[in-house]
C-alpha cells in the first residue's frame, strides 16, 4: 500500500531558552517570523518562514535550517500536517 506522504508546512515549533527576546533575535537572524509562544508551553515558540513552500512532501532545506545549530535552540520541529477526523 502507498505509504502516506508527509506534508511539511512552513511553520516550525522551536524550544529556545532565555526568553522571548532571545527567541526574537534568533528568528530574525534566520529569516523566521516569531509568532509567539505556543499556548502556555514555556520556552516553546511558533516560527513562520514565509519563503518556504506552504505544503511540501519534502522537509525544507536552506540557510534557515541552520537555525538548529544555534546553541540556544534546544529543539526544533518543522510542522507536518496531520489527518484529523471528526468523530
Amino acid at each position, binding site marked *: *500500500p502507498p505509504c502516506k506522504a508527509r506534508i511539511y508546512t512552513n*511553520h516550525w515549533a522551536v524550544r529556545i531558552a532565555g526568553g522571548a527576546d532571545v527567541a526574537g533575535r534568533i528568528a530574525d537572524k534566520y529569516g523566521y517570523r516569531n509568532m509567539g509562544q505556543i499556548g502556555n508551553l514555556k520556552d*516553546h515558540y511558533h516560527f513562520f518562514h514565509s519563503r518556504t513552500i506552504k505544503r511540501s512532501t519534502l522537509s525544507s532545506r536552506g540557510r534557515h535550517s541552520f537555525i538548529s545549530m544555534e546553541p540556544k535552540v534546544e529543539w526544533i*520541529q518543522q510542522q507536518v500536517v496531520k489527518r484529523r*477526523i*471528526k*468523530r
Partner: protein
Amino acid sequence: DYKPAPPLSLSSPAHSNIFYNDAKWSSMWYIHCNDDVHNCQSDMNIMGAWKRGYTGKNVVVTILDDGIERNHPDLFQNYDPQASFDVNGNDMDPMPRYDASNENKHGTRCAGEVAAAANNSHCIVGIAYNARIGGVRMLDGDVTDMVEAKSLSLQPQHIDIYSASWGPDDDGKTVDGPASLARQAFENGIRMGRKGRGSIFVWASGNGGRSRDHCSCDGYTNSIYTISISSTAESGRKPWYLEECSSTLTTTYSSGENYDRKIITTDLRHRCTDSHTGTSASAPMAAAIIALALEANPLLTWRDVQHIIVKTSRAGHLSAPDWKTNAAGYNVSHLYGFGLMDAEAMVKEAERWKQVPAQHVCVENADRQIRTIRPEHVVRSVYKATGCTDNPNHVIYLEHVVVRITITHPRRGDLSINLTSPSGTKSQLLANRLFDHSMEGFKNWEFMTTHCWGEKAAGDWVLEIYDSPSQLRSQKVPGKLKEWSLVLYGTSLHPYILSSDKQRSTDMLTPTEEEEYDGPCDPECNESGCEGPGPHHCINCLHYFLKFKNNTRMCVSECPSGFFRDDKKRCKKCSSLCETCVGSRSDQCTTCRSGLHLSEGANTCVASCGDSFYLDHDSNSCRRCPESCKRCASSNICTECKPGMSLQGNKCQMTCNPGTYYNGHRRACEPCHPACATCAGTGIEACTRCADGYLFEDWRCVSTCSSGYYLSEQTSDNGQVQRSCKKCDHSCYECSGPGERNCSSCVNGYNLEAGACVVSTICKDANEESWAEGSFCMLVKKNNLCQRKVLQQLCCRTCSQKG
C-alpha cells in the same frame, strides 16, 4: 455517634417538576425523566443533578473543533471569549468559516450540548446550561502538532474542561496519537492547569464512522490524561459506529440506528439539528456532566474526576457481551468502560469527596527478551510486577495501566493483544484490524487499560500476543516481540480512606455537611477502615463482599445461600436451581433448592431422576444405578437392564447366547453343560433348559428319568410337546405318572396296592408255615376271596401279586 446525612427535602422550589420553554425541550429524552414516573430519573440522572442546584455555574468549558457560532441565540448568553481562540486564523474570533457545505458545524453542535441557554424559548437546553462555553477553531486548516498544542494549552488557568470530538483517521490502518508538543501540552495542563488541580480533557472514543478500526490505535483516547467517552443508543444497544477498546472510561447517550431517538443540539446559522451523531455527541455531554460535578466541588483534581466517574458509572441497561466485574468490584466493558455516566451520583460524590492521594507512576523494568510471533500461535509473556515497592513511586492501588510495546511484524492487522492483571482481569489491548497491512509494527506504542482500576498492582501480569493471518503471508519474516514494559499508575495509599496524617482539603466541606465518620467499623471491615458503621460502609472487606445492583457492596463473613465465593473474595450468585454451589453455572451445584435433587456427577439440580439414576432420599440426590442398570429402585435393586443385559434377580447380567452363561468372575459368557440348552451357570445342575434328547429334572438335564421321577409330556400353547421328568408322589418309590395312584413300586414297609403304596403289616403269607403245600392262599386267590379284609391280610403276599 454516626449521623446519616439529612434526607434531601424535596419540597424546596428547586424540586418542582422542571419544565423549560425551549422549543426542543420535549425532544430531549436523554435529559428528561421517563414520561410517566414521578420523581423520575433518566438514566444519566441529569435532572437529579439540576434538582440539587448544579447547572454548571462558574465552570468554563471549551470545544476544540472547527469553531463556534458565538452569536447563536442559544449560545451567546454563555459564550466566553476568554475560553476561545482561532488557531487556524491566528486571531481571537473563533467564528466558523461558512460555506455551502456547512462543514464547519461540528464545534457549534458540540457547544450547544454543553451550555445552550435554558428557558430562552430557543432550540435546546444545555446539560450545564449555566456554564461558560468557548470554542477553539483549530480543525479548519492544516492541523499540526503545534496547532494541537496551542489548542490544548489555551488559558489553562481559566478553562476547566477541554472537549474534543476528533482524532486520527479511523480507517482501520492508522496508528497515530499526540506528537511531542501535544503531549507536552497535555502534561502541562495536567500539572499546572486549574491552579494545579489539572485540566480536564474529555475525548470522543476512537470511532469515526468507518468500520474495522480499534480505538487502541488512537493515541488520544489511549492517553491517561484524557477521559475517553463512548456512546450508547437510547435502547442501551451498541451503536453501529462504536469501536471497543480498554481505554474507554465511561459512556453517555448518542444517536444509534435510524429508528433510535436522536440528540438535539444547536446548529450553524442559528438553527437546531438532530443530525449530530456518534461519539462526537457523547464527549460534550460528558464534559457538561463533569462541569456539574466541578460546580459541586471546584477543588476536584483531574484524577478525582476520573475516580468519581469510575465509582458512579453504571452498567445499567447497556448491553455488551463482555461485561465483567474486576477485583475491585467494578463492572467494566470494552464497549462502555465502567458504564453510563450518572450526573446526580457524580455531584453527590463530588460534594463530599476527599482528594485522592498523590499519583505514583511505577515504570516496571522492560522485558527485552525477543520472542518470535508465529502465525496461529500465541506469544505469552509473564511479568512479575512489584509495583515499585522499593522506591517512592510505590503503587499498590491501581488507576490506569499502560503497556509500552515494540513489535515488528509483516502485517500489523493480524495481531491481537491481551493483558491479564494479577487479579485475573483480562483487557483486550488490540483486536485484529482487517485493513491494516502495515509492516511498521508497533514502535514503543502505549496501549492503555482502565479495566484494572482499584485492583492491586503487584503480581503476575500476562501479556498475550496472537497472530491470526487474514491472508497468505510470507513466512520468511515472522513477527517479533522486541520489548514490552508495564507502567502502573495509582497510589500507595488506599484512594478512599482517610489517613490521619493525610492533607485533607476541608475548605470544600461546609460546617453543616456531614463530618467524616470516625466511629467503629463493622467487624467485617478489614484494616482499610470504613465510612460508616454498617457492613456496606467498609472500604475493603475482611472476608467476602456482596455486590448489589446499585453498585453498593456489603461485607459478609460467609456468602449467603444461593451465592458462592470466588477467588476475588466476591459472593457471586449461583444458578437459580442451586441452593449452594461452587460456581455460577447450572452444573456447579452442591445442594439444590427444595423439591429438586442433585444429580450425582452432573452436579445439576433436577426435578426427577433420569434413566440410570435412582433417588437416594437420605442425600436427596439422584445416584447412579449400578453399571448395567437402565432403571433401578436402589443401588442394589435393578428394575430394567441396558440393552445386551438381562435381569437375573435384581441384577443385570450380560445376555449370553443360548448354550452359554455369564461368568461374573471372568465377566464373560461361558458354555453350559452339554446337556443344557440354556443355563444359569456351570455344571449340569445349572440348566435352565435342556438340550435335545435330554429331560429336565430339577434344574438338571438327564437322558432318562431317575428313579423316583416319571416322564411327563405336556403340550404347550404353541402345540409343542414339553417332555420332562417330574418327581413321583412322595408315597411312591417309583411311578409311571403323577399322584399316589401311579406308583409302580413302593419303599420297604409299603405294599403296592392298585397303584398306591399302602403301609404293609407283617405279611406272613399263610402258605409259608402252617399250611401244607401252601395251597390255602392259592385257593383264596383262585376263588377271588382276596378282597375279604381278613383273608387279604392272611394272604397279603399272594393277594398282592399280579395275576
